[in-house]
């Protein structure tokens, strides 16, 4: 057949696909979606059937009979028996706006970007052989349809056209085609309705082409199934009617299991089934229609295979290409062209979907996190990132196809289509523990998923990928036969001596063992972060939290400021939320309109407020879901987070209570200390008083007894002893009086007579009272007063008492003999300042403050003066303080000795009393004050 015709037909077909995609997008924009249709959806899922199915199944059937079937039994089982898993995944994808399988897994495990990157990397590496398989099939089929004329001869599939490598051209063409299709939209989470429509159309084309060939063979060449199988029996092909010789049912089980995992975990299947799903109800149709599609496309596999085996009796013709070569053999050029287009549609659909799915992952999960983290590009400064995003996706598509072409050149020549596909299946299966574990087991942790995935992928690469390089001669073949460095235990096809299984079972066993093992063990041993726990709950209990989803106001994808306020209020209190939002509005110079759609600054504000209440991770999830909209309704979010909130509230309550208790305890302790202190002071005071009272009593009693028991005592002694008794009695009375006075003053029960007092008579009275004593002791007293002494506001008697106490002290402590005592009075700053100076030893600095304390006494030596009570100065201080003045002692500035000074406020002539510094309220003249 003319290469030109085939090329033109192919290009025309691709053009039609593009038109369908374009038309589909247009219809979607107009709101009359083509793909809101369960049949279109189901047909798009049939992207599972690639050229591997189209060509490879027949090839496998021609070699080993029914062994091709498990690949389709697995998916059928998943859809028929275990559609729950899809319902759950689809719901989660919708709730979380999942864009890819990497997004899904990273989202489940706390939105970890590293995990997302790992998944994307494995997806790219795992998908590469699969895409290369499509390239191989297109290239081979193109070569065959243009060169093969029906002979029983071998064909070189990589014969170059136009001096260029056909496969490379095809890879390039598919890259461009994928770019045109897949990167027209920016938002990867939006539905690509046009593509889905095109993929569905391709599914129809490939099924139609395959059925056409099958019909032709069965009913055109032979007289129906019966005739065909009879002939095959005659041609000794009965071994193909059953499972391959040897009856390896283990392989069947492996294959069924593997394809079950693949239908869920292959990036493109995940993408088309979950991400592109527009309505969960479509799955109800897919559950029966997709298995039916698989059945339909498999009905004629065996007939075509048998007819091929019967037509090409000499072998040499690649059984993988029977779909194409059988029509050519029977001279049906048009049918062959149809078959070629069918194969092309199978291959292109896979490449397009896989390229879109993987490029989205590469962009979103590998490149963007790098850009964000490594700051190669200052993303914040670049306003519009759409161009950058598209560029990255397009580059990724080209990169992935070049990689696939590379793998094709390296490995695919030595492998059949099916084997290459299975290598990819095992890679995809590595995602299964993370996905299935993630949606059914809340305890699955990020570290578990990371470890399991990484180990599984390494094991896959070691047991399948590297050997495929070795078999193609890119690594020494001894690597397979004798293990690396001749270590037999490490032979990639017989790891740790596990022999007797086929490569696939062997690889699946080891990779799944380490993957699931690490996933479970590490998950059990590691702690989940808050966001992991939240995401885990949202994934596992997705149905619980998404009931009534359709009624949510958030379905439309935007939250109003009022909604945000309510959300925040629920956790921080309505009043606080309201206030904060109001103040934020004022700061920003905005009006608070609750109905307005919240923009980023409002979201930011709300998130910060929430973070304060529930922690930043939770806040981010909550706000994030509000922003994206349609994810979780407020009610659902509350359902999830109320528990947290209640726990927080409860723990706050406990904290408050315990803090209150602590405070109370502290206060009690302090009060207790204070009481103890007071008790001790009281105890000390009572002890001191007791001592002070007992001392004169001792003398009185002793001398009384001496006098009464000693009748022959001399007259002199008797007189002396009687005078001692009298003086000690006086001392006792004075002591009792002073104690009572002091007690009254301290407790505020003293009766004061406050009046305008002439200060001169006060001083004179005190001096007169002390002069006799002074004379007796030979003390010279000098009084220095102003000519016109001012009026003061005071209690006359008490002030006299103060002066007497000071003069008495001065007389006692001045030098003996040669004592000098001076009294000086003058006005200073609204006060009368009176000083009493002596020429004694003075008061040491450290005692200057203490002398005014109760019962503070000096050693009085052998002084013959009546012993002091130790209360005189304390009483002086009480009186002066009450009168609103101050009292202090300093060194005598004019020589040795001490100078005691005190101040008393002057009286105001107009009857208005001077108010002292302490603003003590001054009573009216003559008023008796009881404090």
């Amino acid at each position, binding site marked *: 057949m003319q290469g030109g015709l085939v090329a033109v037909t192919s290009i025309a077909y691709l053009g039609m696909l593009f038109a369908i995609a374009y038309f589909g997008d247009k219809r979607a924009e107009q709101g009359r979606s083509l793909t809101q249709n369960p049949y279109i959806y189901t047909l798009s899922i049939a992207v599972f059937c690639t050229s591997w199915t189209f060509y490879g199944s027949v090839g496998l059937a021609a070699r080993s009979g029914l062994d091709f079937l498990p690949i389709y039994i697995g998916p059928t089982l998943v859809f028929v028996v275990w559609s729950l898993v899809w319902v759950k995944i689809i719901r989660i994808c919708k709730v979380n706006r999942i864009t890819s399988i990497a997004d899904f897994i990273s989202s489940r495990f706390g939105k970890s970007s590293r995990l997302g990157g790992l998944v994307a990397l494995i997806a790219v590496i795992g998908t590469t052989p699969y895409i290369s398989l499509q390239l191989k099939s297109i290239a081979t089929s193109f070569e065959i349809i243009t060169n093969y004329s029906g002979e029983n001869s071998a064909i070189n599939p990589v014969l170059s056209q136009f001096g260029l490598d056909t496969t490379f051209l095809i890879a390039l063409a598919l890259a461009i085609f994928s770019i045109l299709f897949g990167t027209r939209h920016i938002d990867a989470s939006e539905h690509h309705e046009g593509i889905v429509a095109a993929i569905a159309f391709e599914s129809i084309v490939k099924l139609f082409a395959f059925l056409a060939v099958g019909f032709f063979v069965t009913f055109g060449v032979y007289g129906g199934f019966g005739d065909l199988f009879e002939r095959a029996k005659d041609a000794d092909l009965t071994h193909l009617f059953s499972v391959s010789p040897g009856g390896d049912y283990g392989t069947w089980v492996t294959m069924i299991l593997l394809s079950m995992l693949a239908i869920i975990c292959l990036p493109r299947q995940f993408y088309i089934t979950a991400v592109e799903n527009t309505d969960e109800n479509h799955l109800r149709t897919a559950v029966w229609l997709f298995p039916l599609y698989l059945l339909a496309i498999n009905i004629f596999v065996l007939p075509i295979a048998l007819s091929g085996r019967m037509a090409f009796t000499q072998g040499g013709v690649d059984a993988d290409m029977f779909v194409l070569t059988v029509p050519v053999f029977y001279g049906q050029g048009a049918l062959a062209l149809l078959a070629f287009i069918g194969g092309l549609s199978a291959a292109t659909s896979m490449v397009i979907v896989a390229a879109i799915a993987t490029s989205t992952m590469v962009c979103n999960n590998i490149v963007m996190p790098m850009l964000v983290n490594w700051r190669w590009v200052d993303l914040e400064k670049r306003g519009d990132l759409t161009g950058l995003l598209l560029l990255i996706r397009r580059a990724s598509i080209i990169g992935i196809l070049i990689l696939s072409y590379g793998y094709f050149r390296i490995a695919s020549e030595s492998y059949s289509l099916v084997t290459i596909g299975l290598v990819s299946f095992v890679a995809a299966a590595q995602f299964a523990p993370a996905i299935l574990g993630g949606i059914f087991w809340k305890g699955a942790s990020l570290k578990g998923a990371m470890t399991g995935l990484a180990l599984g992928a390494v094991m896959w690469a070691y047991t399948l990928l590297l050997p495929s390089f070795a078999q193609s001669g890119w690594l020494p073949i001894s690597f397979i036969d004798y293990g690396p460095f001749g270590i037999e235990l490490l032979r990639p096809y017989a790891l740790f001596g596990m022999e007797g299984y086929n490569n696939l079972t062997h690889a699946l066993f080891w990779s799944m063992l380490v993957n699931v093992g690490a996933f479970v063990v590490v998950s059990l041993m590691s702690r989940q972060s808050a966001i992991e726990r939240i995401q885990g709950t949202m994934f596992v209990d997705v149905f619980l939290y998404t009931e009534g989803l359709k009624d949510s106001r958030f379905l439309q994808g935007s939250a109003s400021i009022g909604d945000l306020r309510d959300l925040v209020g629920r956790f921080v209190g309505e009043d606080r939320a309201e206030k904060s939002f109001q103040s934020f509005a004022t700061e920003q110079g905005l009006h608070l309109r609750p109905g307005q759609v919240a923009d980023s600054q409002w979201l930011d504000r709300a998130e910060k407020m929430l973070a304060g209440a529930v922690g930043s991770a939770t806040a981010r999830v909550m706000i994030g879901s509000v922003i994206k909209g349609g994810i979780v309704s407020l009610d659902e979010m509350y359902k999830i987070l109320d528990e947290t909130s209640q726990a927080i509230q409860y723990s706050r309550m406990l904290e408050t209570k315990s803090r209150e208790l602590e405070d109370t305890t502290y206060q009690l302790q302090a009060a207790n200390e204070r009481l103890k202190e007071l008790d001790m002071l009281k105890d000390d005071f009572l*002890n001191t008083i*007791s*001592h002070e009272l*007992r*001392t*004169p*009593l*001792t*003398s*009185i*009693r*002793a*001398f009384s*007894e*001496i006098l009464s*028991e*000693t*009748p022959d005592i001399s007259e002199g*002694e008797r007189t002396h002893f009687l005078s*001692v008794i009298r*003086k*000690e009695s006086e001392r006792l009375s004075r002591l009792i009086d002073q104690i009572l006075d002091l007690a009254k003053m301290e407790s505020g029960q003293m009766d004061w007579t406050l009046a305008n007092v002439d200060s001169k008579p006060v001083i004179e009275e005190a001096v007169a009272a002390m002069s006799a004593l002074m004379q007796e002791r030979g003390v010279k007293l000098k009084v220095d007063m102003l000519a016109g002494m001012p009026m003061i506001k005071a209690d006359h008697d008490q002030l006299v008492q103060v002066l007497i106490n000071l003069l008495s002290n001065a007389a006692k402590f001045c030098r003996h003999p040669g004592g000098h005592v001076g009294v000086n009075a003058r006005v200073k700053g609204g006060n009368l300042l009176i000083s009493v100076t002596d020429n004694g030893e003075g008061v040491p600095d450290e005692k200057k403050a203490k002398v005014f304390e109760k019962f503070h006494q000096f*050693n009085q*030596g*052998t002084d*013959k003066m009546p*012993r002091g009570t130790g209360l005189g100065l304390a009483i002086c201080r009480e009186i002066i303080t009450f009168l609103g003045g101050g009292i202090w002692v300093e060194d005598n500035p004019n020589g040795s000795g001490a100078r005691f000074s005190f101040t008393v406020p002057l009286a105001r002539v107009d009857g208005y009393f001077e108010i002292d510094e302490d603003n003590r309220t001054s009573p009216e003249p003559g008023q008796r004050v009881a404090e």
Partner: protein
Amino acid sequence: MRSAPVGEKGEREQTMAYSVLVVEDEPNIVLSLQFIMKRSGHDVRVAEDGEEALRAMRDQTPDVVLLDIMLPKRDGLSVCETIRANPDWAGVKILVLSAKSREADKEKALALGADDYITKPYSTRDVCERVNAMLGMECPQAS
């Protein structure tokens, strides 16, 4: 008021003069104690604070110390302790005369080596009897 040094014990037995050290800062109490002790025939010396008391002890070891507690410079309890720490003064009898009336104060003083404790105000007869009891003699009867 220093008394002349007393000679050997034998001599003392003949003269019946015991040495009493009064440690007290209240002059009138000193006066009364001096009178009482002299009436019993003892030699009396006086110290007005704790330090002076110890100096007097070193000048001449007394037979009895009448010791106040609340003293200037060094309190009576410390004096008591110091006396008891010196083996040379082991035979010295200590009678504490204190205005501190609590049982605890008494126990403290006895624990520090005092031989007896009398609370002020005391009966002079009581003081006389206790001192003489310590010295193994009788108190002169009041007539």
